[in-house]
């Protein structure tokens, strides 16, 4: 049985390789360096590796679009866009972690390398041209996160979050895999292009490698639909779509704050990248089926996220529900399934990354060793105790609520414009009304900061220059994107025509 190895174009996965190598390097260096000499050098190595990764992605930006590794990996601007986003996010998270590592006695070598490995998984998801690659990416993303979630050994919640995440994640993986199996069983391929071709769409990814199916979608639509439904479950879990979102609040609350920020932003973005790839490349013919289903899920997600968030007292939990709601918004753009929708997803992931990272940076800044100050009441009077922190938090909250002139507004604007263009007017209306509800709890943070006197005295937060830098960068980004969205839009516009 001759088995021909496909041509391996290592260049196509250069960013992934770079980041994986960086992670490994961090681990190795960590082995050979003295403990307790500070972990600054590891951060520097990580950031340097990220810089290299970013450079490689930029080089690939102008490379020809192609499918590499026998169609497993797609090299296109869409992938590079996400690569850059992930690199940016993880860089900010590295900055944000400086305080946390110290405060919680993290083991920096493992921390950084796991973070970087996780990013490698995300990159593979965004570049996936095959359901197998989607699966592998998810797992590579998740397993380091399971570990990192339990990293706060001092807090009992951390390990609880970890086990919950792991069990539910593995459970969801089961669904995802079964979904892949059923799709494979119907179309005889896991390659997105081949699936599309079998289902009757011409795809640039489809090659002569695609097998002629023995069973077609025409004869077995039920199996295909079941497979697709299970894919929705598996991917929806990662993206925290209701009703597969249940892990989110618990895990976000339990995980170290910097990691929560990372998860809420990066793994969500990766999940949506994969969702876009899978549904837009493989199942465009079934858009009537999954479109409506995703629309319903989007509505449920927005309602669940926003209404439950109304009752939260813990800022991390509040942001967790908020992130669920935001997943709902992004899903609206996916449902729109048009070019503007893709643009909106890309823009929104960037905007959301900025504002959420910023918000979490403030959360970190407010805590001290042994005193996390995570309750909303701890924000009372912050605007006067710490005017700069208060102002930044206000910007992030307004952006999350979608008030102009912030990135969050522009992002929502594109999402719902896309929905309107796709004649999903009702969805747009529901989404916007949901964001009105959301304004309530975001504003709650704001009014606590400015309109309520603190119940007790708070010690001045520790100086954390790197975290402050991260927050400042995020705020600047939120405003720049809100007022001059043109630059990012151009880049996003260049990235929306993915190979498929």
């Amino acid at each position, binding site marked *: 049985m001759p088995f021909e190895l496909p041509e391996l174009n290592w260049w196509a996965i250069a960013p992934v390789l770079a980041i994986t190598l960086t992670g490994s390097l961090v681990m190795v260096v960590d082995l050979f360096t003295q403990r307790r000499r500070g972990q600054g050098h590891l951060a520097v190595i990580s950031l340097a590796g990220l810089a290299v990764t970013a450079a490689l992605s930029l080089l690939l930006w102008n490379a020809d679009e192609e499918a590499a590794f026998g169609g497993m990996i797609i090299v296109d601007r869409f992938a590079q866009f996400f690569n850059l986003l992930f690199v940016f996010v993880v860089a900010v998270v590295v900055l944000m972690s400086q305080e946390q590592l110290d405060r919680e006695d993290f083991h920096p070598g493992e921390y950084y390398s796991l973070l970087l490995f996780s990013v490698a998984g995300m990159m593979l998801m965004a570049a996936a041209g095959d359901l197998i690659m989607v699966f592998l990416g998810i797992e590579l993303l998740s397993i380091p996160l399971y570990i990192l979630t339990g990293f706060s050994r001092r807090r009992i919640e951390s390990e609880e979050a970890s086990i919950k995440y792991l069990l539910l994640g593995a459970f969801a993986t089961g669904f995802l895999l079964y979904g892949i199996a059923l799709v494979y069983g119907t179309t005889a391929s896991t390659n997105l292009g081949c699936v599309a071709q079998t289902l009757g769409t011409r795809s640039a990814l489809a090659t002569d490698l695609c097998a002629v199916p023995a069973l077609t979608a025409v004869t077995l639509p039920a199996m295909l639909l079941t497979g697709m439904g299970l894919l*929705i479950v598996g991917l929806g879990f990662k993206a925290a779509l209701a009703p597969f979102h249940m892990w989110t609040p618990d895990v976000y609350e339990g995980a170290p704050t910097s990691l929560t920020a990372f998860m809420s932003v990066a793994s969500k973005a990766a999940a949506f990248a994969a969702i876009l790839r899978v549904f837009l490349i493989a199942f465009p013919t079934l858009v009537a089926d999954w479109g409506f289903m995703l629309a319903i899920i989007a509505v449920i997600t927005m309602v669940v996220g*926003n209404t439950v*968030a109304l009752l939260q007292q813990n800022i991390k939990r509040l942001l967790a529900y908020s992130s669920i709601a935001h997943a709902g918004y992004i899903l609206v753009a996916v449902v729109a399934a048009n070019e503007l929708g893709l643009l909106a997803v890309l823009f929104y992931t960037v905007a959301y990354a900025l504002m959420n990272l910023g918000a979490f940076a403030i959360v970190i800044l407010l805590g001290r060793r042994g005193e996390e100050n995570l309750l909303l009441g701890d924000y009372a009077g912050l605007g006067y105790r710490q005017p700069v922190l208060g102002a930044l938090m206000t910007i992030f909250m307004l952006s999350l609520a979608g008030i102009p002139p912030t990135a969050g507004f522009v992002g929502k604007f594109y999402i719902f414009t896309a929905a309107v263009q796709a004649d999903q007017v009702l969805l747009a209306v529901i989404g916007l009304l949901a964001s009105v509800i959301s304004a309530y709890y975001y504003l709650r943070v704001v009014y606590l900061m400015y309109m309520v006197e603190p119940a007790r005295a708070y010690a001045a937060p520790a100086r954390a220059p790197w975290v402050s830098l991260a927050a400042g960068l995020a705020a600047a980004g939120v405003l720049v994107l809100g007022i001059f969205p043109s630059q990012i839009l151009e880049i996003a516009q260049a990235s929306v025509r993915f190979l498929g």
Partner: protein
Amino acid sequence: MLWLVPALPLLGSVVSLFFGRRLPKALAGTIASGAVLGAFVVALLAVLEFVAGDTTHPFQQHLFPWIAWGEGRAQVLVAEAGLLLDPLSSVMVLVVTGVGFLIHLYSMGYMAHDPSYPRFFTYLNLFAFSMLVLVLANNFLFMFVGWELVGLCSYLLIGFWFTRPSAASAGKKAFVVNRVGDWGFLVALLLIWTTFGTFQFFADPAVATTGGVLDDPGRVIRDGSLALAIALLLFVGAVGKSAQVPLYVWLPDAMEGPTPVSALIHAATMVTAGIYMVARVHTLYELAPASLAVVATIGALTAIFAASIGLVQTDIKRVLAYSTVSQLGYMFLALGAGAFAAGIFHLMTHAFFKALLFLGAGSVIHALSDEQDLRRMGGLFSPLKVTALTFLAGWLAIIGFPGFSGFFSKDLILAKTLERGLEDPWYLVLYAVALLTVAMTAFYMSRLVFLAFFGRHRGADEGLMPAEARAVPEHEPAAAAGAVATHQRASPVVHASHNSRAADREAHGAHGAHGSTPHESPWIMLIALIVLALLSIGGGWVGIPPFMVGAAGHESPFEAFLAPSVAAHGAAEAHGALEATMEWVATGASVVMAGIGVAIAAALYLAGTPSPADFARRFRQPYLWLLNKWYVDELYQALIAHPGARLAAFLAAFDLGVVDGAVNGIARLSRGTGAALRSVQSGYVRGYAVTMLIGAFAILAFWAFRG
């Protein structure tokens, strides 16, 4: 030059407003009075110039486009600020400035000790300005400005002593009741605009505009009901402003204001605005004869109704107030009979003698240290010679003593009504009512005069109170209780006089107690009285009917003068005038009626046989109804004010509970949803897994059962 007429008082008002407090009192008063005097002089000159020319065409002065936009041919002109002088407004402007000036003069004495002296003259000058705008305006809307502004001034002046709740209430009541009337005016304006497309009274040949409303409105209005609607709506406005049934209720309360205000605004000028307006637009009324019948009926009804209340009031100013309402009714009767000139004539003479009576009453009140209750007066003739003599002149004028001004004007009204009655029997009924009212008027005025000036001074001696006062507390506890109850609502009943007394005391507080001896008022007040007395006597001579002097024709000089403005086009001209003998008979009838009234009053209050107390006891029920003013205030309270308040309270609760409740309900719903969904987030991993599984099944089931 005409613009100076309103401008001078306005200027005076502004000066008083900004500098009044810094100027010496005498100077401030002089400036204010001087402004009105100036206006009078200018008006006189203007009128003389106008009379010298062709009086058939009104003189118009266009000041500036007021509510307008655009330029040239594209201009949309809703209304301009413009003045108009014709015989009708000539009479009005002279009365307003003339009587106004006298009252200003009087006020300088009367208000001399009031701390708010400058404020008073600010308001008074502002009133003069507003009234002049009202009578001089050359279009409906500008007239409406004056119309409303006089209402404002009335409000301000009634509530001049605003720290008294009754004064504040009375001011508000006056304004609000007037607004009800203004509603009619306003809607009439809307109809006029949609019908005619302009608010101008008359086209001005000097300016190329389209025709005015009153230049033969029949050319535009083909539909009689439209004319009727406009006429009646305008009349609603007139009813409010001129205190006719059913909107007269504010005027008696308006006596809470300082007495000169009562004289100027609530007797001589402002309240006659309704008469002026109806006369002004009489061409519209003539298009709808039914409207004239309404006007006449309301007028006659008001005349007798108010007179009946006046019969038993004990507050000197209130008697005069009801008398004013009654006299205004006469004027409307005249208008309704188509005798517009007669109405205006009576307006003028009434302005003289009623202003005189009020000012005289003010002088009495002043002399008695703010005593207004007739029951505590008496025998004032000798201490207050000038006041009393002038007052007597006013009395004779109002009861229609032959030769006095009121005689001629009232007689003309009666004659014209009778004339109309020969064609339309309804007017005969009205004539009868009017004739009866003559007797009643004579009675209550004589009663007032006898109680105040004759007999002996009763002062604070409660024991000598006239019977009718005793009747209430001693024999009619129920009525007394009712009266007290109304009093507590700051509503006007008999007891309000005590408040008024307190008020005027405040006004005079500065010059201390006068003691119990009445003293004559200062000369500056007496001058005004004397001049007005002369006018009350001779003011009617311009209107001596031809038959009395044996001249030919049917029109008195006054009527002839006014003819270009108010000559009836229709009904009134159609029929022949009465025979001279008939005229004499009619005149005699009214004189006889007046004589009867005087005689009864003399019997009761001079001779004391029968005693007023017995009289009141014998006719107890009618007496109580009259004393409580037919319970109209109470009726309005029960029918309008209370249900209105209840409705408002209901709506306020509705707003909070239902409308706002719905809004908060949405918020609660969101929260409730959140709470319900939150309960699913139990913390148990297996529960989460179940949810996921349910979600997965739901997706599949949806597709499976989609059909």
